[in-house]
């Protein structure tokens, strides 16, 4: 069987396209699990803040500890199944630096509870959106949607802001994860 170079180039381009799609699909599969888990945790965190504000000081550190431990567990499980490392010590260090810088910004800006509830989702979703420019447009769409809805809540939703954020941030992440799973 013989073919011309143009046909060979088209076949190789087809292969590259499929390989890219498979890689993206695997990233989406892993990211969807992480999104659903973080969505459920932040949903719980905001609900606790809404129903029992004095317990928020315990709820949020618990959300972060369980979230980071869960992310590591999902990553290890994924590595055992696929042989691909997705969360290593450098990523853990990057996450710590990212959180430390966020805490520094909050300290510098003397943020109140409402500003804190607005800043953290926007801060996380900004990184998420930027990463999406490389790893897939679904990340950009989810990130920007949550940023816009968070700002809308900050400016236009009154006392029910934490309840709004439970659905926008927690629910948004879970819906985003489910959407990513299907895409």
């Amino acid at each position, binding site marked *: 069987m013989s073919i011309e170079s143009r046909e*060979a180039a088209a076949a190789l381009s087809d*292969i590259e396209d499929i390989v890219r799609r498979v890689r993206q699909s695997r990233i989406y599969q892993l990211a969807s699990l992480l999104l659903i888990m973080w969505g459920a945790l932040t949903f719980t965190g905001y609900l606790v803040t809404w129903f029992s504000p004095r317990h928020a000081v315990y709820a949020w550190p618990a959300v972060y500890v369980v979230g980071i431990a869960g992310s590591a567990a999902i990553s290890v499980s994924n590595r055992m199944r696929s*042989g*691909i490392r997705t969360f290593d010590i450098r990523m853990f260090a990057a996450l710590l630096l990212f959180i430390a810088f966020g805490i520094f910004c909050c300290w510098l800006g003397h943020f109140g509870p409402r500003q804190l509830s607005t800043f953290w989702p926007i801060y996380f979703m900004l990184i998420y959106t930027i990463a999406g420019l490389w790893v897939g447009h679904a990340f950009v769409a989810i990130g920007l949607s949550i940023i816009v809805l968070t700002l809308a809540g900050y400016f236009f939703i009154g006392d029910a802001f934490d309840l709004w954020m439970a659905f926008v941030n927690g629910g948004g992440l879970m819906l985003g994860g489910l959407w990513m799973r299907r895409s």
Partner: protein
Amino acid sequence: MAELDDIIHQPLRLRIMAALTALPDAQGLEFSRLKKLTGATDGNLGAHIETLAKAGYVAVDKAFVGKKPQTTVTATAAGRGAFARHVATLQEIIAGAARKS
């Protein structure tokens, strides 16, 4: 120059093999995901998977997850080798044409 593999060269079978060999060894793809990735219809995909399975290039595993049947397709070692040779031949064709021009 090595010959192109007639079985793999068909466009949809090429896409199926490209998707399966992009995964680590022994890891497969569910039928529905493979369908989405290759843009094939159920019948078309099933027929081409059967051709690849007859050639020994893929293994088909049918199981029940709960009450739902699930078909997983995995590239065999022979399939991975044949696909790698096919890709190398395609690259040779392009390199050969570039040398001539």
